[in-house]
């Protein structure tokens, strides 16, 4: 199935959790410095392990950048 990850279509296996997606993207599973939103809502880190990425979901995976 396909979800949108940071504005790009991406194939994700059914049942992929947020934690699994974050690891797939090469980020640490603990997620320090990483935030995830799905369909415009923040996904609290405590829910990463159970929250699945649905077909057509708009996922934003954000991290710290130099700025300000």
């Amino acid at each position: 199935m396909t979800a949108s990850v940071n504005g790009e279509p991406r194939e994700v296996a059914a049942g992929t959790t947020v934690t699994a997606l974050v690891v797939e993207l090469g980020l640490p599973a603990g997620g320090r410095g990483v935030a995830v939103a799905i369909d415009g809502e923040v996904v609290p880190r405590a829910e990463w392990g159970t929250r699945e990425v649905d077909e057509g979901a708009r996922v934003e995976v954000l991290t710290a950048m130099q700025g300000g």
Partner: protein
Amino acid sequence: MLELAGRQLRSRLILGTGGFPSLELLREAIEASGTELVTVALRRIDPGMRGSLVDVLDAAGVELLPNTAGCFTARDAVMTARLAREAFETDLIKLEVIGDERTLLPDAPELLVAAEELVDDGFTVLPYTNDDPVLARRLEDVGCAAVMPAGSPIGSGIGIANPYNVALIVEHARVPVVLDAGIGTASDAALAMELGCDAVLCASAISRARDPVRMARAIRAAVEAGRAALEAGRIPRRRYAEASSPMHGLPELSGGPVE
């Protein structure tokens, strides 16, 4: 000691991390600046990114102050703040709601709405604001932990365009005032402190200087000098000279012999 957002900070310089050409230069500048608080932005992950900013900042022992840079509405800024809280496990937020692309000056009504919502949501809000004493008071009234007026537009290096307004903000504020944006060089930072600001937030003046590490050292010294000058109490300005050597006891040196 600066008391800001419930923290005791020895350094009155907050460093923005934007614009440093490398993480190594950023690390060296942090050390040279003596800062204990640095800003970070939140953006989509960049697969090509080398090195972890958060790792560098954690190793430097500084606290993170996430910002909402790039947000043009209260709604986006609030969402970004909530994401930053998840990412960095902090309730601190440098609230920016921009109203104009060319000047990057704040959008006052949106800023106030976002500030109030974030305070209600438990954030410690440090708003980047205009040099407007009335808006500063409104932000304070909704519970912001500090006010951070722009000296002049972000990255412009113009310095403090309206020192009179900054002094007015300082005079009436019951929360710390942080001069944010517009610093071009060390003397601008010293002026901010002499005007009574509690701290200076500086990014581009350091990160885009020819020698960022040396400029970090210079601005650190300027912040310390300006603060010391404020505490020492400057002399009043006068229209005419006031001799610093005594006028009495002057010898008679001109004219001929006594008749």
